[in-house]
């Protein structure tokens, strides 16, 4: 794939946090790409580095974070890591926008929805009436009835599902090249979740924007994404095209994650599968593969040195010696 087809190209990104106990190596050598008009899903459990990754892309990291030398976050040809503060302001909310997890807290409770939406357009030198019209149009696009009138309303006057629709509308106001959605449906009921996912599919056709969709729900990733990235303890352990990944998962962690999902278990049963052990301490990393201590298929090379990403097929790779050795 040529460079021009990529919206986001993250190369060898490593991020650490300085803490009292030592350096927490939260992300290590992460490579991900988001092609134009594609939805890329990031899946992984708590503490796997999903949030650190998206915060790095937006440069919203905490002050004690260190982006290690050699890291590169290329967004449409510009390296986000080298950007000045004014360039970053230009980037955030305009060229990359974000939908957060909890729509109840993402909106300002004391400012009307219309004002919050037109505020996003502060860069545009157009009359207020025009801005409000755009905001109303956008609300209508995300399925909010009677949009013009509801601009006057405050967030508490909307239900949870409607609030998330508003957040999505706000994220799309500036027609961004990349939309990052961080667990956008976790706070919602399953019926509303299905509605939001449906909406995101529709909007993707309409707005032609690329999307980075972060979730721990495998069902949603399968439903929505074109490509999938599986993260574990700060590393990308497997990535590939969505069908490849779900049907021919190569990394033991991905396989176990899929097996654990109660929605995937066809027969009702009393004892559910789990992944034994816990995530390793990210200050004192094991010398070999990061998943080795919990891996049921661990063998000699796993403890010696960390695995590289090995190709499973054209668009599918996994950091696992089993793939290298064809076992």
């Amino acid at each position, binding site marked *: 794939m040529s460079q021009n087809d990529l919206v986001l190209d993250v190369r060898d990104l490593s991020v650490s946090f300085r803490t009292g106990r030592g350096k927490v190596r939260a992300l290590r050598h992460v490579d991900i790409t988001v092609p134009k008009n594609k939805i890329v899903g990031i899946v992984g*459990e708590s503490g796997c580095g999903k949030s650190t990754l998206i915060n790095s892309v937006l440069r919203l990291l905490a002050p004690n974070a260190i982006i290690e030398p050699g890291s590169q976050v290329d967004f449409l040809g510009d390296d986000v890591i080298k950007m000045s503060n004014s360039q970053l302001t230009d980037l955030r909310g305009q060229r990359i926008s974000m939908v957060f997890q909890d729509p109840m807290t993402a909106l300002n409770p004391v400012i009307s929805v219309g004002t919050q939406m037109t505020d996003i357009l502060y860069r545009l030198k157009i009359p207020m009436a025009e801005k409000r019209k755009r905001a109303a149009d956008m609300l209508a696009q995300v399925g909010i009835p009677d949009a013009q009138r509801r601009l006057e309303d405050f967030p508490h006057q909307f239900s949870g599902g*409607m609030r998330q629709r508003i957040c999505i509308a706000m994220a799309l106001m500036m027609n961004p090249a990349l939309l990052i959605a961080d667990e956008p449906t976790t706070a919602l009921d*399953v019926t509303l979740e299905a509605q939001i996912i449906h909406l995101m599919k529709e909007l993707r056709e309409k707005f032609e924007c690329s999307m980075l969709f972060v979730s*721990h729900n495998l*069902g949603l990733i399968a*439903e929505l994404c074109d490509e999938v990235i599986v993260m574990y303890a700060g590393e990308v352990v497997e990535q590939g095209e969505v069908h490849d990944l779900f049907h021919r998962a190569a990394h033991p962690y991905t396989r176990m994650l899929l097996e654990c999902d*109660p*929605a995937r278990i066809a027969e*009702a049963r009393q004892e559910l599968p*789990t992944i034994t052990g816990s995530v390793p301490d990210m200050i004192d990393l094991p010398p070999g593969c990061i998943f080795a201590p919990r891996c049921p298929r661990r063998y000699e090379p796993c403890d010696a040195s960390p695995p590289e990403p090995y190709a499973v097929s054209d668009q599918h790779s996994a950091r696992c010696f089993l793939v290298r050795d064809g076992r």
Partner: protein
Amino acid sequence: MADNILTVKDLRVRFRTAGLVKALVNRIEDPFIDAVMKVSFSLGRGETFGLVGESGSGKTTLGRAIIGLVRAQEGSINYDGSELIGLGDKQYRSIRRNIAMMFQDPVASLSPRKTVRASITEPFRIHKMGVANLGEEARRLLDLVGLHQGFMGAYPHQLSGGQARRVGVARALALEPKVIIADEPTAGLDVSVQGEILNLMNRLQRELGLSYLIITHNLPVVRHVSDKLAIMYLGRFVEQGTTKEIFERPAHPYTLGLLAAVPEPDPDKRRDKLELQGEIPSLMRRPSGCEFHTRCPFVQKKCLEVAPKYEEVAPGHWASCHFPFPDPADAKAVGPGAMPGMGNVPYAPGAAGEERLAAGAAMGDSMKKDIFRGSR
């Protein structure tokens, strides 16, 4: 019945929405909302009963009413032969030794200023039970839920979600209750940890003979853990039966919609259609007739006017729908997939009932039978 440890009958919980003065001034005739509306079910000894519904369906209120945290206005709650409705605070306290509650959000339900040891032994102090050796009890409880003794002095912020949940389980078990009401026991946990907690609950149920009332909106989870299931909508049960029966032969369109809304982790099974549109209406403005008619893809004229009866559609399987799904003899012969027909109803947010009514009527009963080809 002798083998039921908990029997709830026609339970009604109302909340006041306006004070006496405000109600008089604004001429509000009925300043109440019904959060739980005439609900009946029974929990067998050693059984697990799942309570499923969207936010605002009243499932948490029902759980809290049973343990006496909110007062029920009508009906009966019978625990092991004794009636709980009408008990005073003091009398209720002794009941709570036998019925424990695990609250939503494992971390937030623990006091941030108490160590794990203090949290799990607090029930003994509250109930003024002279326990000779609290440390011993704490060790026993931690052992029971599979937590290392080293957690004894830890504070909630030092725990992961799964560990905090285990502490919640330990605390609920402290007084050796017979019934545990678990409100969203797996919400906010990773899938691998979800399994651990459910396995733990299962093991404890076998070892200690516990009965569970599990309140959740996670259908894939209840399927594996509960024996019986009730689906709640706007404070009422709309369907009730054995878990197996409900998953295999859902009778109510709402149940079917909930089942269809769960995404399958398989990219080949993507859904193009949306099964359930809109959101749960406000309790202040209950719809006329069948209260689900505003969202039902199969709405007919009758549904707008007449409230359906809650009737037995098969032995032990109850539903309130004028047109419950028939029992499909060939349900097993068809594979999963998108549900044909559902979602074909044009969605016009805020549109008057007529449009959707027309669309629903056009689909007719024959279409409804076909739906089953797609349900799981």
